[in-house]
């Protein structure tokens, strides 16, 4: 089976889990091809080998766009079927300028499409909304978090486009049940073909030993994630202020980088947490895992989330976690024994949970062991690959509408 995967930036540090997933598909015998829009950089190791086709930039000046369009149009002429799709796409745009924009975006996709087209992010699928509605290829879309939680709330056009895609796509992969339910509500259609496939732990994490018992009286708290407001770290810092005032001996390391760095740096200085909290910046995955193993508690005060891979990894390594009850997080923290859920933005509940863990080493260890057992048995690569293969097969078998 051939799969064409569309990515925005490649490689991207925060999308390593997708490369791992695709590597697993290759092992299972799928022919995976990659289309990418921009070159990126990543500190992480690339688990995935494939030829990459770069799509033309949409930011070029109009004459270049015209040349690109003519170039792909000429190539599409060899296949009347694809040419028809291309013209159907253009019907969605009014005015020459927006037609040109749409042509530069979608014509290359018409040309390169082979087998099933997979959009690993809902937001990316919305960008190619016109293509998805016009193409005769089978389309599978993943919904992972902000693409269904955030953008539909703040942007009506996005919401409408996503709604149409959810009814049209031949398979919708949701990373958790919560997202599946939300997507089904949004689609509001019997044609919705959603399926939950949980993200797998990477082999590196799966094979690692559990984090051990630490005798240090100072509790090491750790967070890993992009520094944007969605991670809710500012609320976490308010909880840290409360912990400090309660006299709890702790140290909190926040690993990651992002546009919300400045507000967080200010919050740390403003609340006098310089001695207690460190923003380390981005790190290699191996180094993150090493730090996770030496920590006592993992803290994830998110505002919105699908299922956080960072939390799953921490749990797999035997860390007790304190996590906001948002998105699908309660599917990973299914019982009180495997982790602590707190309402988002509630610094008081966060501080209580952290204090409870900080003062109770036995609780930390027991919770870590339960978390590890639960996550290692429910978030496996085998189950994930099997799920995707079934989803793809079903999508291919479908009658085209």
């Amino acid at each position, binding site marked *: 089976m051939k799969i064409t995967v569309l990515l925005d930036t490649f490689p991207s540090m925060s999308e390593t889990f997708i490369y791992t997933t695709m590597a697993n598909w290759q092992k299972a015998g799928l022919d995976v091809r990659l289309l990418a829009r921009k070159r990126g950089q990543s500190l992480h190791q690339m688990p995935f080998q494939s030829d990459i086709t770069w799509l033309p930039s949409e930011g070029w000046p109009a004459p270049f766009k015209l040349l690109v369009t003519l170039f792909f149009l000429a190539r599409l002429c060899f296949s009347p079927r694809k040419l028809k799709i291309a013209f159907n796409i253009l019907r969605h745009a009014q005015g020459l300028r927006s037609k040109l924009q749409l042509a530069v975006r979608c014509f290359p996709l018409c040309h390169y499409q082979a087998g099933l087209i997979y959009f690993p992010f809902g937001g990316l699928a919305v960008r190619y909304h016109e293509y998805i509605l016009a193409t005769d290829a089978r389309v599978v879309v993943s919904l992972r978090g902000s693409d269904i939680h955030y953008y539909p709330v703040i942007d009506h056009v996005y919401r409408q486009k996503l709604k149409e895609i959810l009814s049209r796509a031949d398979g919708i992969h949701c990373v958790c049940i919560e997202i599946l339910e939300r997507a089904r509500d949004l689609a509001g259609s019997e044609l919705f073909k959603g399926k939950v496939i949980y993200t797998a732990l990477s082999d590196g994490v799966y094979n690692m030993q559990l984090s051990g018992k630490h005798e240090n009286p100072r509790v090491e708290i750790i967070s890993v994630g992009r520094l944007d*407001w969605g991670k809710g770290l*500012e609320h976490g810092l308010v909880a840290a202020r409360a912990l400090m005032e309660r006299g709890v001996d702790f140290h909190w390391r926040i690993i990651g980088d992002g546009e919300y760095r*400045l*507000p967080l740096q200010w*919050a740390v200085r403003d609340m006098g947490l310089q001695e207690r909290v460190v923003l380390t910046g981005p790190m290699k995955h191996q180094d993150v895992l090493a730090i996770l193993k030496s920590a006592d508690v993992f803290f994830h005060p998110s505002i*919105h989330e699908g299922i956080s891979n960072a939390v799953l990894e921490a749990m797999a390594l035997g860390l007790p976690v304190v996590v906001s009850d948002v998105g699908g997080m309660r599917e990973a923290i299914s019982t009180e024994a495997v982790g602590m859920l707190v309402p988002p933005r509630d610094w008081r509940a966060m501080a209580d949970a952290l204090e409870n863990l900080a003062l109770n080493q036995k609780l930390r260890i027991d919770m870590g062991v339960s978390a590890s057992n639960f996550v290692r048995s429910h978030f496996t690569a085998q189950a994930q690959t099997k799920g995707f293969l079934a989803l793809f097969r079903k999508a291919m078998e479908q009658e085209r509408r």
Partner: protein
Amino acid sequence: MRVGIVVTQFPSPEHPYIFEWIKELLSQGIDLYIITEKLSAMPQDGFWDAQSEIRKRLLRINRIDQPDLGLFVRSLVGVFICPARLVRLFQILNRTELGKLLTVLRKVFEYLPLLTSDFDLIHFNAPQLAIRRFELKDIFQARSLVSFRGQDFTFYPDRYDRLLQAADHLHFISQFLVKQAMERGYDGSQHSLIPPMVDTAFYAPANSFRRRAENQPYILFSAARLEWVKGWEFALQAVALLIERGWDIQYYIAGDGELKGLVLYTIDQLGITDHVHLLGWQSPEQVRDWMQKSDVYILASVSEAFNNSVLQAQACGLPVVCSDEGGLPENIEDGVTGLLFRHRDAWDMAEKMELLWKDAALREKMAKNGLNRTRSCFDIRDGAISFGNLYKNLQ
């Protein structure tokens, strides 16, 4: 005494009282000129006809990224009148820019419209601007005054270390900023503290104080940019807490900004879409009207140098519930014109709002106190006098 005040944009649409302020200074005998990097497009035709006196006092820096060729041609006249000044401009810029030819040429082009002017004092209206254009003081061989008005030390604590030493005099709008400057090594010997002022003729209560009728919702109002410094999540969380406790609330927010997505998302997530209304950017007149018909003004800033709209709200006779961050404790008098809560603490904020609402007499007292305090301490005319005296002292 000729003073040149350097600003990024003139006139700023959010500060319409600036004209009154300038006229007041002129009447005190200050020969004031405005040197602006950018001229705002004014909405009404014939706007400048009414302000012809000030129009004459407006000088422009011809920014190289938005060059005005007409201005360039006009300023060439100055080169013919006093060619010696052009040579001197080259020499001074060559010295201040350490011989970087491209920068020198760019700045010669930019400052050409100022060639025929003379100043005794250059007042930089913001520290960022002072860093960018500090050579103006050398060009005019004038004394320098730098105003600190914003969250400059919050964002970039170490950026102004040299400026704090180099400027002849500093102006801070709050004690909080003085403290931040002193943490960066300023010795505290050469500054003036003049808080922002409010036009109390414009920002004033409607005919009578608003009394809340029974069975009507409490109206909350905020006017601030939708940016992280304003702590929107905390304000919305506090509003959600109160709604959960059974209070009937309608909250109106004037302003726009890059974190609109976060605000919309938070409103949706907290399930208070029927209670919170985003009004977008509002003109000063609209903001005043909202202040006149609201019950309480709220602001949950996590970083604030002083804040104009809190002052305006008090001038409109509106009690304020705001965070205890930065210059806000100097802005409202806690327990007298409003209530302070611990910044980033939605529960404390909700508690303070509840306290105020349970007590109509307290609300009314605070409204009156706010009105009296702004009229006696923060009136724009008094502020202009303070600035006039400061300029005269620096002569």
